[in-house]
Every structure is written in structure tokens, then in C-alpha cells.
């Protein structure tokens, strides 16, 4: 089975390198982007299985990347995990509303990051059957 490919988008080269090392060690193939424009271009070029996306990016930002990707049908389905240093208040809801799978606050706990990635990659849609609730006699 081929390794899953993850696109990491962050404008901090140190963070990019750190994530690269960590995810490679966990058998993921990695591609990188450092700004809004190259994030979309790299997603087009390498069709990753998942995108780790920073919010504060040059030339637009993470939310713009999400918008752009949504307009390209083949890329719109790629699960996105937001990894941002920004305050979760407000941003988290906005990110989830925009379709992100999760919002992680930097600095990220490695175990948590890996767990969220695994969940986003192996996600299956499950619908519970309705349950009935007996009110009893009134």
C-alpha cells in the first residue's frame, strides 16, 4: 500500500521542517508550501490525501486557500486540518464552518496531531439509526 501524502502549508520554514521530519518518521509522503498561492498550486500538482494548513499566510491566508480549493472539484474533497497559532476563539468555529476537519492550536502536541491526521484520513461516514423514546402514559 502506498504511503498517504500530506501537504503542509506554513510560512515559518522552521515549522515546515519540523513537521516534515515528524510526519516522514510516521511514514507519510510530504509536500510543502509556504504561502497562499503556492499552497493551491502544490495541491493541484501533487493531489495530496490531506492538507495541514496554517491560517496566517502571506498573500491571502488559510481561509483563502480553503476557498480556492473548494472551487476545484478534484481538490475540494481533500480533508483539511488547521494548525494555527491564532486564538481558537472565533477562528475555530470559522474554520470548522468552512469545512476543516479539525482546528489545532500551535504548539501542537505530536500525539494529538498524529491522531487527528489518522482520523481525518480514515474517516468513514456512519449514520446511526433513529432511536425511539418511550414517554410512558401521561
Amino acid at each position, binding site marked *: 500500500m502506498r504511503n498517504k501524502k500530506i501537504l503542509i502549508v506554513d510560512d515559518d520554514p522552521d515549522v515546515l521542517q519540523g513537521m516534515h521530519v515528524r510526519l516522514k518518521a510516521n511514514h507519510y509522503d510530504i509536500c510543502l508550501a509556504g504561502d497562499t498561492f503556492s499552497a493551491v498550486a502544490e495541491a493541484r500538482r501533487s493531489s495530496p490525501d490531506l492538507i495541514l494548513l496554517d491560517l496566517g499566510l502571506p498573500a491571502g491566508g488559510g481561509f483563502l486557500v480553503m476557498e480556492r480549493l473548494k472551487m476545484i472539484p478534484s481538490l475540494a474533497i481533500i480533508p483539511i486540518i488547521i494548525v494555527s497559532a491564532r486564538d481558537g476563539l472565533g477562528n475555530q468555529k470559522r474554520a*470548522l464552518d468552512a469545512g476543516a476537519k479539525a482546528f489545532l492550536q500551535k504548539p*501542537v502536541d505530536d500525539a494529538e496531531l498524529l491522531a487527528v491526521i489518522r482520523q481525518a484520513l480514515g474517516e468513514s461516514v456512519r449514520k*446511526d439509526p433513529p*432511536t425511539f423514546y418511550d414517554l410512558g402514559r*401521561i
Partner: protein
Amino acid sequence: MKERALQVLLVEDNAGDVRLLREMFNGEKPGSFELTHLLRMSEAETHLAKGGVDIVLLDMGLPDGHGLDTVRRAHRVAPNIPMIVLTGLDDEALAAEAMKEGAQDYLIKGQIENRALPRALRHAIERHRMQTETDLIRTQQLHFKDQFLSHVSHELRSPLSAIRQFVTILLDGLAGELQPEQHEYMGIVLRNVKQLQAMINDLLEVSRVQAGKLMIEPQCTSISEAIAYAVDTLQGAATAKRIVLSSDAGCQLPSICTDPTRLRQILIILVDNAIKFTPPDGEVKIQARVCENDPSLLVLEVSDSGCGISPDMTERIFERLFQTSDPSLEGRKGLGLGLYICKELVRRQGGQIWAKSTPGQGSVFSVTLPIFSLPALISPAFRKEGRADGPVTLVVTEIGSQSGWLSDEVRAEQSHGVREVLQRCLHSHLDVLLPKMGVAGAVELFFIVAITDAIGGKAISKRIREQLHDHVQQAGLTLSTSYQSIAPAGRHSGESIEAFLEQLASGIQELINAKISSEEDGQCVTKRF
């Protein structure tokens, strides 16, 4: 430049008083005041709504309004216009109350010295202007502080993020095996990085507390899970100091109504503190039980065998930025914000927190939090009483939850209470209901089943009709059923239970207003929020 005349609205029904008050303006320069006189509160409300008034002189005894009510009504229509209330000699206490409701000043009729009235008006307007300005500056300052903290924390987090990543990369041997000593030192770096991270979070949290922006989303929460999480997270820190960290929380404990993330946060702060202040080989214990004095509360206790707190400090430790001045308490690191945040989190979830301690023998921190009660939550929805002149409407609500809003166990646990609420609701309407029975169209029964799934809602709706059929026939009632489909509020949508119930209550009202009914079973009205 010629100054504009100040527009004064006088609301007073006593002609004698009006004449006296008018005379008080006689000594003023012509054109400095323009007096509009109205007799009734309703007229005043209409006039105020149009705008253009600089100040209101309001009598507190009008034909269509009395006492504080007049002040509230005026304030509601024109919240930004200063107001002076006029009152009799015996009403001074009431006038003082009016100041709390937003009046700038009060004048006692018959005691107003000559020329004092225009001066009082000018002062009130000026005071009001200054107050508005101060409020605005304060809001701007708070906003600026928020922005600043948010910016700073962002800037601090980014480099911290890189440090943490590479430290863990080294620790995990991803860049080659470390010598034991190197491993130990890297461990120290990581511990301090985490501490710095926690401090940045605390700073942000405190700024939120002060700005009233603390996000709390109460829901049905398991206490034992939260305790297990806290033990799991801090076991390492305890073991490092050879401290025995144990918990004693029976699995029969009821769920509580709290934000699960916040509950974990509270526990982590308390347990972390306990470990910090307990010398090696000590003991830290977490316990939970239903409150002896109030069965609607759960008590959570974190006790330690640490150095203890002197009695005069047990309240002060919850103050913001409190730091112990005792030099013997080494190992104390932090901003002194943890317990303050803890107290705010507990307080805003309807609980209390306190500490008891015997110096040298350890401390016990106790927290109370409300036990989750579906009946208590849905009760407010039934308060909409039927009016004596209108048809009686009964509303029965069931909150559905296939999407995991409540677990099956919790629903089973709560079902009895819910049934009681429903019964009480029926019962409390009986005195209105009975005289109207047999009168066609005078009684309507609405059963609103709130459930997430349309098919489920329909089935339940049918079931209720069947169950009630005999009763309804005997009583000669008209029975209508309808249901609402409501996506459960929850973690994902970021809405609180309160918001959910508010929606539910307004939805119910909407349905009642629209008089939605179904002649035959099967016609369902679905409403999604």
C-alpha cells in the same frame, strides 16, 4: 456662534407643578431652553422615539405609568438621553432607586430652589456626556488590550512551536539516539516549553475573563471521564515526585451540566497545583460525590498532603496574580492566574469553589457543579400558561438525540423526571382546562416532539396520539400533534444548552402562534434551526 436651545421634555400631569417648573426658566437667557410638555407616559414614549430630545424631566406618578416603571420605559425608548426624575417629599428612597435604573438625578417637588432647575439640567447633560465618553474610552481600551494580547500570544506561540517540535524530534530519537544525559536535559527543555505555553494560554484566558468573553458551553458531562483524563495527564508529573495520585469516583455518579473542556481545565489546574505544593512521597487524591446538603449539586474534591495554606490566605489565593510570599515554597512557577481562572470557570457554571487547609497537613480544594437535569432544563418551556380567554394550549416537548446529544443511559436516567414535568404541566392546566371541556375548539393539545430525525419524530407523534386517544376522547378534547425537528445543539455548532432551549422555546411559541395542527396523523411540520 449662537448656541442651540436645549430641548427639554417635561412629562408631568399636574398643571400646578408644570406652571411652577416653567416659571423656573424665566431667569434664563431667551432661547437657551425649549420646553415640550406632555401629560402621559405613552405620549412621552412616542415623542422620545422620534429623537431630538436633550434631556427628560420625568414625573414618577403619571396617569399611565408609576414609579420605577416610568423610568424603565423612558430608558428603554431612549437609552442615551439623560433623565431627571421629579418626585414628592415622601418618595426620596424611590428616587434613589431610579438613579440605579439610569436616571442622572432627582429633584424633590416643592424643594427646588429658584434657578436650581436649569443648572441641574445642564449638569445632568454634562455628566451624561462625560459618562458616555468614559464608557467609550473604556470599551476602546479593552478592545485594544484584547488585540494586543491576541497579537503577542500569536507571536510568542510561533517560535515556541518550532522549539517544541524539534525538542520532541530529538527526544523521540528521530535525529539519532540520545545519550541518557542528553535525553534528560531535553526532557527539562520540553517541560519548560510546556510551562511557557500554559502561561501564554493563561494570559489569554484572563483577558477573556475580564472582557466577559469566556466561552462556556455547558452540556451533559461525565465526571468520571474528566477525572480519568486529569489523572492520565498528570500521572507523569506525580510519579516524578514519587507522589501517589489517586482518584475515587464511583461510576454511579450522575452526569453534570458543565462544559467538558472547562471541567478538565478546572481539574488540571487543581491537581497540578496540588502536585506542586506536595513534597515528594506525598499523596494527591481526587474525589467526587453528590452534595449532602443539596442533591442538585456534585462536589468535587482535590486533597493533598502538602504544605497547606494559612487560614487567612484560603480566600486570597483565588485572587488574580496572587503569589505566595513564603520563600520555603520552592518549585512554585506560574503567573498566579490558575486559581483565579478556576474560580471564574466554576462561578460561571453555577458552582462554587473554596479551600480548607491545616498548615503542615495539606489542603482540600472543593468545587461544586450542578448535576445535569433534563427536567430542570425543559421546565421553562412549559411556563407558557394558557390565557383564561383563549383556547388552552398544552405543549409537550421531547428532546431527541440520535446524534449523541445525550447518551441512552442519561436519557433512561432522566426519563422519569421528564415524565413528571409533563404530568405536572398537564395537571397545572387542569383548572383552566376543566371548565372549558366539551366546548368545541376551546381546548387544543399540542404535542411537540423535538427530535433530529423526521421519521423518528413522525413515529413518536403517532405514538403519543395512540397513547392519549382514550383520555382525549373521554375529556372531549381536540388533539393536535406536531413536532419540530431540531438538530441537537452541541460541541460542533458551538451553541450552549441555554441557546438551544431558547430556540426551542421560541420555536414552540412560533408553532402555537401559527396554530399548526394536523387533522390526520402524518402531517408533520419540520423546523430546522
